[in-house]
């Protein structure tokens, strides 16, 4: 470098081949090192996913048998299953989705079709976005305050409410995004035929945005099926068979939590089986959601 500086001109490839070579080598070396690190980071991410799935299969598959699906949870050492937990998760996930989806759909419709950029719509959009990432344990505490304490006990319905609150912002986001993607021509054609706005939205826009909306709902289902924290304070978990929404209700994630921390080998084994079931269920729904979305393209 110093040699070329004395010549009084700017050092550069054209003036000094040695500088050019050194600079080029350094630039390409940096480039190669950074590239290698990035590939390493990606490999690390994939290895972690692999490690999690492998651990689940390795530990979970050993305990997978028909009894898991036919027997309810029982005291340690008496050949119990996870039937009540599986059914509880199905009930609460379904109810949470059924309650949360229409609300989310209407909020998304309001944001895309009515409110747009009005102050109220911006406020709703902001709050919905924050709710989307808000810690789920706080939603559990909130539902405990409004639906458990006043009514004197933990209940399946409180669990459903907590899960529904998680569903709402997910459906809001996808519904609004999908409705905004619809070409104006489609709307104009329907309005031109004299259709009232609500019919345009329900019969034309929803149908056009169906794939996106279904994707949103599927992602919401995948999210709430594996939620544990909000259920700890609402549906609590139940080691006995119960499908009553007024009683505490079992769920797979809460049962996994209770069993994994226990000192009994067969309970820990069942926790792994439950973990295997819930993870592959959730991942399957996620992949299905992606397939639905890419179907139209």
């Amino acid at each position, binding site marked *: 470098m110093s040699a070329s500086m004395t010549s009084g001109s700017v050092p550069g490839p054209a003036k000094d081949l040695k500088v050019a070579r050194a600079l080029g080598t350094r630039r390409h070396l940096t480039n190669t090192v950074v590239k290698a690190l990035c590939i390493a980071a*990606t490999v690390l991410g994939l290895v972690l996913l692999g490690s*999690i799935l492998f651990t689940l299969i390795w530990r979970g598959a050993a305990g997978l048998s028909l009894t898991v699906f036919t027997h309810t949870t029982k005291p340690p050492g008496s050949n119990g299953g996870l039937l009540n937990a599986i059914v509880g998760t199905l009930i609460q996930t379904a109810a949470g989705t059924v309650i949360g989806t229409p609300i989310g759909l209407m909020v998304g419709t309001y944001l895309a079709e*009515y409110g747009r950029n009005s102050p109220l719509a911006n406020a709703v959009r902001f709050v*919905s976005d924050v709710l989307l990432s808000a*810690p789920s344990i706080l939603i559990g505490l909130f539902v405990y305050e409004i639906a458990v304490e006043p009514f004197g006990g933990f209940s399946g319905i409180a669990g459903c409410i907590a899960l529904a609150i998680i569903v709402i912002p997910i459906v809001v986001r996808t519904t609004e995004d999908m409705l905004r993607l619809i070409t104006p021509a489609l709307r104009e054609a329907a309005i031109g035929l004299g259709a009232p706005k609500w019919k345009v939205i329900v019969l034309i826009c929803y149908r056009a945005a169906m794939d996106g909306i279904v994707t949103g709902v599927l992602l919401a289902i995948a999210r709430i099926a594996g939620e544990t924290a909000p259920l700890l304070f609402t549906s609590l978990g139940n080691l006995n068979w119960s499908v009553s929404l007024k009683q505490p209700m079992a769920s797979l994630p809460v049962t996994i939590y209770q069993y994994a921390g226990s000192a009994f080998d067969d309970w820990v084994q069942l926790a*792994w089986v439950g973990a295997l079931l819930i993870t592959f269920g959730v991942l399957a729904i996620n992949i299905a959601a992606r397939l639905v979305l890419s179907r139209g393209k």
Partner: protein
Amino acid sequence: MQQAVALTGSSVARRSRPGDPIFAGIARASGVFVLLLMGSLILSLFIGGLQAFRRFGASFLVSTTWDPVHEVFGAAVSVYGTVTTSVLALILAVPIAFGIAFFLTELAPAWMRRPVGVAVELLAAVPSIIYGMWGFFVIVPIMSQYVEPTLIDTFDGIPVLEDMFAGPPFGTGLFTAALVLTVMVVPFIAATMRDVFETVPPVFKESAYGVGCTTWEVMRSIVIPYTRVSVVGGIMLGLGRALGETMAVTFVIGNSDHITANLFGSGNTIASIVALEFPESPAGSLKLSSLLALGFILFVISFIVLAISRTLLRPRLKV
């Protein structure tokens, strides 16, 4: 409602089309409902924690005592644990997430982008309790047998670092919690960064390649400056996730009510102490109120972080 009715014009139109104002009314009411939901969430946590706030006043925030026997409660230990684990997780997660996003947008061959991208997104979809189990049964043994003894030996005798990496290598504790959190937030940050990087107009990048820039130089001089603000927004989104994560942390944090400088020591986060202590907190007790007060503090922290994240991300990305 009345305005909407008036807008439909003549009374004939109103009679023949009652659907429009009704539908618009339901949509608007749903929007207002979300606002009310958030409002009542804040309010209920605050009211629930009022008993604790009244009893301990401002000292609740700075007190390191958590003594259920004598009914003295303070938030400092769990706030410290929450902030330490989340910040540590971010320090570890950001470079990894950046690497993945860089790989997905610039390096990966076209056929590889989608499968690898989906794999990263699936990593984000794994339920948090699974991360907790995986952390407890896989990471904790590795930490206690290999990583922690090695780190303790390595930093022995070096000031500050010696205190940070000290203590019995149980495998559980703040450091392990931070590691599990890292694995959890990497996919979130990576996916957001990738989406943000993809918003850079190709012309900018092509011009840089055209004058002979290497891939890394394009990234450093074009992509990062162009997306800087949104990248910070994506990192804040990851921070928001880490702060409120419950199940994964609860499994590996060790549950202790003391602040220690060493990272291998046990601790607590707000979310983990709420999950662990809630079953032993009867309705109406001062302890339950203290837990709700902690929930309120967590809400305020996450709300601020998420609000900043959204403000930074929204202009670039419809997040």
